[in-house]
């Protein structure tokens, strides 16, 4: 990188020197415009053109990068505890990780999707799925924080998620593993015909984005792998790819690959919505957590919900159909016009493209090949728009540039292949290093892609970077797709497994990004809004410390009268009202992480002192020239002592 730049500058100076008194500067730029380094170089202090939200896979988080530079800005904690930001450690965010299985400190985050208005990404929220203990999270892009998590009942391996409809009416969560619905004790071998696959439609309230499960469609016991919404003409439908239509429960790598074709399930959700709004569906007992973070109290609450509305597809005739698609399709991707549904049969040599128009006419003309548990199976040829012949090995996922081209990843042959919608001809291919999974074009899952870059996300890097022992980084690769041929510009390491991503023009988000929380709007029950209100209150063995921070001291900074066996809650309010002045705090021996408190925010950690002594605490986030002075002491006396409870700042405790 540096060398290229250096030689580039050197060359440029020479050229300029030779031609400086003539007007030929523009020609020189043209001759050098092919440089990949130049295309990804963002001047120090300048901003990237796009945000990329890249999931962390098994890290459970969501990373925020800039494109084209590939610079990492933030890792947003979602499903996994994050000691750096006290996510899942402080009292305020612990409820966010509550589930029907109790506190679950980790998940596997896969598919981020940005909210849409009128089929165009609007930059308000990112939704992302937790696979393992099925959950959907919502990240508010005004604060870049997870503000809501809803658990999905009757689901397991929540994988065909979290994709939004074109006005964010719903975020959809399909189960990968079918399970007994409701769960019960039964022999595994009786799977076939008895296990079910729940496809969950979570309504998103338009103004505040609150999530609520509207209904669950209880489908046959297949594996539901990925899904995408219809858009434009197909708005109102949702498409889910399936595998294991064999309904095997063991040695899946063989037994789930027996059928020549599996299905893409087409679900007319508008029809089901209408059915449900008219009182249709069956309320089923359930138990799932709904966790909401409130920005005004800076705290989350977890509510256990006790029932869910289920819909049997056979009760809504004309709402669900199956389109045969060769060999365990993974991607199930709808082009910007809403006409084409691309099935990536991951064990097939070809890509199968269905036509929405042909599907509708096949339904109308009842061109069915049979049914699966009563759900009509459309004739393969009837909905088929075309086939991309032998484009590569192991197709996984397709996105679109809005100019009539599709880009599909091939895991086995490790490449991105560009092909034309309608003619199905392959026009370009570029290798990936190595074993690419998903790819992402900003807005690629919408009516309006920003077809300038594609990011391919790789599972394996082997020799691409300096080795770091047996475990090496995974990576993303950036290609310029503005020309006829794709051009590899950059590869950059990622946090966790970069499973999938969503991208967005920076200008959609930047102006709305919050700089601080207003102290006057802080409704945390333990907020301390001025130093005069700082205090320590004992209630039996529980002690509440109402503490404040400002550059660069804590108030109070001396506390006495704490005893061994106490449970001490430090509620700390950051009194700063300026951009980018968080304070941190940590207490010796506290069985938790630090706190990282944004301006105007209150956060709480718990300390249960076990040893007599005088114990220091300090600020962990470098806040000013006097940061190193930002410290304090707590005196811990024996459990039976009479040391009075006292606190102070700036004077000795007498």
């Amino acid at each position, binding site marked *: 990188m540096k060398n290229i730049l250096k030689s580039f*500058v050197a060359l*440029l*100076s020479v050229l*300029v*020197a030779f031609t*400086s*008194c003539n007007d030929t*500067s523009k020609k*020189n*730029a043209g001759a*050098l*415009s092919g440089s990949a380094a*130049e*295309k990804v*170089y963002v*001047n120090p202090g*300048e901003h990237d053109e796009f945000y990329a939200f890249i999931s962390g896979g098994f890290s459970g988080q969501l990373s925020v990068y800039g494109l084209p530079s590939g610079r990492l800005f933030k890792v947003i904690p979602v499903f996994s505890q994050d000691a750096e930001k006290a996510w899942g450690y402080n009292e305020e965010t612990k409820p966010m990780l509550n589930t029907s299985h109790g506190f679950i400190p980790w998940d596997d985050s896969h598919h981020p999707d940005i909210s849409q208005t009128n089929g165009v990404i609007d930059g308000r929220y990112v939704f992302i799925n937790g696979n393992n203990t099925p959950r959907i999270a919502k990240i508010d892009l005004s604060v870049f924080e997870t503000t809501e998590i809803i658990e999905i009942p009757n689901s397991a391996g929540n994988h065909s998620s979290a994709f939004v409809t074109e006005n964010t009416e719903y975020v959809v969560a399909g189960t990968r593993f079918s399970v007994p619905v409701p769960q019960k004790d039964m022999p595994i071998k009786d799977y076939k015909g008895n296990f079910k696959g729940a496809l969950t439609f979570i309504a998103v309230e338009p103004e505040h984005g609150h999530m609520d499960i509207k209904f669950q469609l209880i489908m046959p016991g297949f594996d539901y792998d990925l899904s995408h919404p219809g858009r434009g003409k197909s708005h109102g439908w949702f498409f889910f790819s399936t595998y294991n239509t064999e309904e095997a429960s063991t040695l899946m790598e063989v037994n789930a690959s027996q059928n020549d074709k599996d299905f893409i399930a087409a679900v007319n959700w508008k029809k089901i919505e209408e059915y449900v709004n008219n009182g249709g569906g069956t309320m089923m007992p359930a138990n799932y957590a709904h966790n909401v973070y409130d920005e005004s109290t800076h705290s989350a609450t977890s509510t256990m919900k006790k029932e869910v509305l289920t819909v049997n597809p056979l009760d809504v005739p004309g709402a669900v159909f199956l389109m045969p698609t060769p060999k365990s399709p993974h991607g199930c991707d709808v082009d910007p016009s809403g006409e084409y549904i691309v099935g990536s049969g991951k064990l097939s040599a070809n890509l199968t493209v269905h036509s929405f128009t042909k599907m509708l006419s096949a339904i109308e003309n009842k061109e069915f090949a049979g049914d699966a548990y009563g759900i009509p199976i459309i004739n393969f040829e009837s909905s088929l728009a075309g086939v991309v012949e032998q484009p590569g090995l192991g197709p996984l996922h397709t996105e679109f540039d809005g100019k009539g081209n599709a880009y599909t990843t091939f895991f086995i042959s490790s490449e991105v292949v560009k092909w034309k919608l309608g003619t199905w001809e392959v026009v370009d291919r570029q290798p990936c290093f190595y074993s690419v999974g998903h790819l992402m074009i900003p807005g690629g899952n919408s009516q309006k892609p920003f077809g300038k870059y594609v990011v391919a996300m790789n599972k394996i890097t082997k020799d691409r970077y300096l080795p770091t022992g047996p475990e090496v980084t995974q990576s993303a690769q950036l290609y310029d797709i503005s020309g006829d041929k794709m051009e590899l510009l950059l590869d950059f390491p990622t946090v966790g497994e970069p499973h999938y991503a969503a991208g967005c023009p920076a200008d959609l988000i930047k102006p709305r990004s919050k700089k*601080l929380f207003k*102290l*006057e709007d802080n409704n945390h029950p333990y907020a301390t*809004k*001025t*130093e*005069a209100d700082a205090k320590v209150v004992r209630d039996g063995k529980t002690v509440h410390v109402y503490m*404040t921070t*400002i*550059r*660069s*001291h804590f*108030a109070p900074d001396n506390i006495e009268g704490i005893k061994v066996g106490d449970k001490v809650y430090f509620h700390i309010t950051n*009194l*700063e*009202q*300026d951009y980018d*002045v968080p304070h941190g705090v940590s207490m010796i021996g506290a069985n938790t992480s630090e706190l990282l408190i944004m301006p105007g925010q209150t956060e709480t950690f718990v300390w249960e002192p076990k040893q007599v002594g005088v114990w220091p605490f300090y600020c962990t986030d470098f806040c*000013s*020239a*006097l940061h190193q002075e930002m410290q304090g002491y707590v005196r811990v006396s024996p459990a039976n002592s009479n040391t009075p409870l006292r606190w102070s700042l*700036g004077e000795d405790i007498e």
Partner: protein
Amino acid sequence: MKTTLKLMTILFAAILMNCGGKEEKKKEGFSYEKKETTTKTEVKKDESLPPSKQIDLSNKGIGPIKSLKLDDKIDQEMVAHGAEVFKKLCTACHRVDKKFIGPSPAGIMERRTPEWVMNMILNPVEMTQKDPLAKALLIEFNGAPMANQNLSEEDSRAILEYFRTLK
């Protein structure tokens, strides 16, 4: 692309200057600088006093407040509001009765212009970087920065009115 263009522009401009035609402008720039240095005078300071005790009633500071004329009569309603805002957002570092993290505001109006006071509240980062007095105060107070509490002009004006009552 942008980088190239910028680099090119700079280099090109540099070379162009060698080709002549730019000298007059250079002179202009120089004389302008000269002017600025001559305008800053007439500050009566007793350098033996610490900056917090020095009196400077000509320096208006740097920030949004360019000129402010105070009414002879103190607006008591504004004072009450100012006292409230001061208590909420300033007392973490400033106490009326004593030097704390920063100086006490008592008597400030005898030492500073109203513009300087409001600019220090509204624009503390630039003030402590560029205003000689604010810079000196930062050093006197051990580098404790004057925090920008993002007050509105109205609130900071009310604080100023409150300061007028502190002797």
